[in-house]
């Protein structure tokens, strides 16, 4: 029994049962003796919020499941040929709308292209758009929002009014208007559009959580002990304000993937020959009654991807709250 807990590290004092507590105490006393006044644990590393969060996450089945799904998606978006040997652009009209058959488990789409290959290749676009848009949104939103929350005053008023303006723009309508004039056939206009309309969400979260964190007594205490503004912002406020931003960003990543699919479905996002789930869903939707497989596979892949990111966001939120430990 004790070996099992020794590996968990010393400070698992939040044990759930009596027997477990005993085992932990034993392990503690065993390890305390050689520990000495060095201030480092058996692992030799100081603990931090992030290492503790990581320890929690490793034990959370939701995180493991969503993490594995996302890892899988990332790998096949980089190397789609690992699991799909065909060419997503090689189509045979004679086989249009045919169902599952050996070597082509998902069947063929309306143009006679292999649905399996196209679904696999579509991952790349979805993941790229999601990750790039989220990075852009998170950076822009949290920097502007964090500074607005910390310094307040004129800068805060100005940027907050700007976010109000952006909030007033309906996403789909804005997409139809702005993206319909774009002729580029890359993912950048879509990413740019999502960042443009999405940063305000992170801005508000970041601003709010910085304002909340700023009012805490420990910020005043840090100031009383001589910490500078930048130190207070980076070391005392950011770690206490970043968790909601990470959570919102992770969940938003899923919704950005769905938004890309929506825009592509409406014909203003990505355009053929780019391979994207949204494009395939759009192409398949008129045939949902005769050939549902054409719609179900890319739509299923989209749903699983969005769900995985949202579940990951949830798990990360739980792990980043030290009070839940």
């Amino acid at each position: 029994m004790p070996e099992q807990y020794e590996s968990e590290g010393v400070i698992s004092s939040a044990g759930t049962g009596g027997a477990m507590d005993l085992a932990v105490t034993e392990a503690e006393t065993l390890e305390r003796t050689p520990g000495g006044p060095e201030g480092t644990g058996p692992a030799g590393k100081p603990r931090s919020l992030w290492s503790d969060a990581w320890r929690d996450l490793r034990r959370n089945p939701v995180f493991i499941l969503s993490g594995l799904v996302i890892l899988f998606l990332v790998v096949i978006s980089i190397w789609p040929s690992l699991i799909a040997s065909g060419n997503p652009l090689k189509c045979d009209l004679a086989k249009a709308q045919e169902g599952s058959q050996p070597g082509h488990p998902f069947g063929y789409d309306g143009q006679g292209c292999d649905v399996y290959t196209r679904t696999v290749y579509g991952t790349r676009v979805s993941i790229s758009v999601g990750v790039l848009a989220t990075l852009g949104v998170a950076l822009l939103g949290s920097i502007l929002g964090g500074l607005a929350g910390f310094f307040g005053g004129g800068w805060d008023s100005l940027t907050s009014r700007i976010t109000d303006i952006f909030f007033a723009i309906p996403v789909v309508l804005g997409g139809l208007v702005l993206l319909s004039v774009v002729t580029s056939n890359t993912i950048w206009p879509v990413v740019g559009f999502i960042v443009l309309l999405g940063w305000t969400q992170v801005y508000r979260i970041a601003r709010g959580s910085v304002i909340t964190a700023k009012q805490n007594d420990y910020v005043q205490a840090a100031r009383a002990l001589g910490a500078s503004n930048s130190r207070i912002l980076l070391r005392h406020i950011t770690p206490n304000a970043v968790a909601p931003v990470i959570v919102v960003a992770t969940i938003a990543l899923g919704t950005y993937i769905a938004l890309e699919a929506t825009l592509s479905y409406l014909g203003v996002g990505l355009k053929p020959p780019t391979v994207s789930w949204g494009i395939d869903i759009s192409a398949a939707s008129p045939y949902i009654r005769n050939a549902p497989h054409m719609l179900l596979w890319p739509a299923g892949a989209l749903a699983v991807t969005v769900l995985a990111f949202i579940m990951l966001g949830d798990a990360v939120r739980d792990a980043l709250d030290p009070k839940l430990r």
Partner: protein
Amino acid sequence: MALLLEVRDLQVEFRTRDGVAKAVNGVNYSVDAGETLAVLGESGSGKSVSAQAVMGILDVPPGKITGGEILFQGRDLLKLKEDERRKVRGAEMAMIFQDALSSLNPVLSVGDQLGEMFVVHRGMSKKDARNKAVELMDRVRIPAAGERVRDYPHQFSGGMRQRIMIAMALALEPALIIADEPTTALDVTVQAQVMDLLAELQREYNMGLILITHDLGVVADVADKIAVMYAGRIVESAPVHDIYKAPAHPYTRGLLESIPRLDQKGEELYAIKGLPPNLMNIPPGCAFNPRCPMAQDVCRTDVPPLYEVDGQGSVRRSACHFWRECLNG
């Protein structure tokens, strides 16, 4: 003894939407090295605000220091630039806050927070700072400091957390410590332990200590002298035993009489009638006059100066026109 801190005619206002609140109206006090000054007063009397002004951590705006001098080791802190001021904070004067749980950053281990003092002010490496943190935790008698240095604030008990706050304040051996109700959030037995520890460390380092409190029991044990505040003003200041023996201000007398005593069992507890004044609208004359049992007409018109009680050059002062009558009961 060497004069460490002298606050002269300090005035602080808060400018709010509803008007100007005069939180501190000409406060004077001084602390010598190794001496303990207790600043006593009820909520809103300006005791914490004047301490924040001394530390330089007043929220500006809405707060504003509108006058006075804060002489610390001969320098006027109010004339220093912000980055010079910052070097004083933590290193030469430090503060202990009331609620250690909310005054410690919940996402940093206590070792990180203790070590930060050495990183910020002494430019130490993280590893050296951590060793220093363990040393400090030992010094404030936290058991198994080497292990617990990696724990987070919420994993400590209230008394232990307050010890950590004390350790942080003491880290760089400052000349002056301001403790803002350091034991209010603790239960009585732990209060005594924490106060003993603080007093012992103060003696060891010969620090000046400003103890802000409303707990007269704590004051009697540790303070050398007392300054009683009311409505942003010192109403009485004196060596601790003089005040307990015979208060020279009716407000102080009221405070002393409202302490529950064991031999008073069954009797109604005395309370000063009325409420502290609204700081946006302090009554003319003596601010205490509407609540004062001894008030006369002159109290409603003339602001009493700080009279020297016990004759010329006395350290004992009272801001009451009738301090003689009060002193004689």
